[in-house]
């Protein structure tokens, strides 16, 4: 089976101080992968590269066997991206924001209406569809962002710290939403929270200093904190030397 996502030796930034270097990744349909690392570990840069926002300085990214570069913007149709800062227009309503996200992802008029309905239902914002996005709570805004990323039913969903800054209830709601995604949807999730990894992902990659330090299967008895510490220490030692 062709992988949904294949990244080979990708790197970004200047040679002497790269933000990301020599990163490989393969994702099959339905895979749920977590990227764990401290601030500045390179998670967001990697997410932007995988989402097609940023071109890698070295290496290449393939989506369903085709190279994701400037010649093929239509490949981004397979990707849904929820960045750290939710990309909503506060002056537009929830409905208008979703309609725009769908149109931008190439959904034609007939499909768009049903896709908006489905996305609103999925993130439980149906009752707020006519509210201005600027007047939503942080949790609702996060759900709107998730709906924007999901509206075109992408094969690959890239979520950059989707539970950051939310209270425990809102965090739980977002986790439930991610856990309830269709099984064929592949997810890459960058997070600081070990609970996110444990609950939502089958695999975890530990990043430090822009490098992949370790990769583990997520099992019920995995010592994520221990692995996290080890990876952070390895990064610190390397920086000192």
């Amino acid at each position, binding site marked *: 089976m062709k992988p949904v996502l294949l990244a080979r030796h990708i790197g*970004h930034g200047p040679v002497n101080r790269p933000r990301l270097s020599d990163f490989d990744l393969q994702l099959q349909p339905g895979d749920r992968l977590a990227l764990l690392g401290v601030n500045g570990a390179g998670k967001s840069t990697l997410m*932007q590269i995988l*989402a*097609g*926002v*940023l*071109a*890698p*300085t070295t290496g290449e990214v393939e989506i369903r066997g085709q190279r994701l*570069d*400037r010649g093929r*913007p*239509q*490949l*981004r*149709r397979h*990707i849904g*991206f929820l*960045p*750290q*800062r*939710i*990309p*909503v*227009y506060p*002056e*537009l309503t929830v409905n*208008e924001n979703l309609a*725009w*996200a769908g*149109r*931008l*992802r*190439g959904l034609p008029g007939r499909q768009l209406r049903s896709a908006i309905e489905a996305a609103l239902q999925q993130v439980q914002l149906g009752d707020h569809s006519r509210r201005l996005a600027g007047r939503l709570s942080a949790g609702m805004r996060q759900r709107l962002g998730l709906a*924007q990323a999901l509206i075109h039913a992408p094969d690959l969903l890239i979520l950059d710290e989707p539970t950051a800054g939310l209270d425990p209830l809102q965090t739980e709601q977002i986790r439930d939403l991610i856990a309830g995604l269709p099984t064929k949807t592949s997810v890459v999730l960058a997070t600081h929270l070990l609970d996110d990894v444990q609950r939502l992902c089958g695999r975890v990659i530990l990043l430090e200093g822009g490098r992949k330090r370790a990769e583990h299967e997520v099992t019920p008895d995995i010592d994520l904190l221990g692995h996290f510490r080890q990876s952070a220490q390895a990064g610190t030692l390397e920086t000192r030397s």
Partner: protein
Amino acid sequence: MISDIALHEWRRLRAGMMFWVLLAFGQLIIAWLGFAQLEAFAKIAPQLKAAGAAIGVTDLVLVPTLNTLVLILLLGAPLLAMGCMAGEVHSGRINLWLSSPVSGTQIVLGKTLGLWLANLPLVFSAGLTVAALGLGADIDWPRLLLGIAGLLLLSLWLASVALFISGLFDHPAAALATSYGILLFLWLLDSLSGSAAPWYWLALLPHVEPWFQGLMRSQDIVFFVATGGAAVLLGVYSIARRRGEV
């Protein structure tokens, strides 16, 4: 997709306060100045008639009012444009654009047209205000229509230039300040240098005023198309740079 982006920009700008404030403020200034010019014209009209002067309401009311509209457009377009690219970057929404299956060319052309659409209500409302003079005075209609055509071209040019400048910055205020600096420079360039200077061709007003005199010159069209087209190309390039493609 270009028309979708243009309509989205238009909808977004229309939903914000800035568009309505500019429209109201611009219309107020145009109406106030138009009536002030008309009052002054009414006072001297008998003397002009007695002297057999060849100037009338078109020269003394219409053209100064259209000149004022040029200034309002120069001030207003950067205010609307600052959010179009710099605002998207500042708010983080640029990620939505860059992760979507649209090219840089589609983004720039769509946003330029959307910005132009947002300038049109002011041009048309001011055009209707001055055209209303035709109810009581004898105005030169072909000249008025050519003047409005010139303003339409100017507003499209302004949209492309202001959008390009907006794309250079991550903060709307920086884009606004730079746009004002560049446009003020181009606006004053003809009075700062003689017509023999090599950069005189870049001066804005000598390419705008002939339209109000009833002249459609190819050199003015070439100026707007060439510099506006260059702004579009540079805008596409700045998106490619943001994506790390160049």
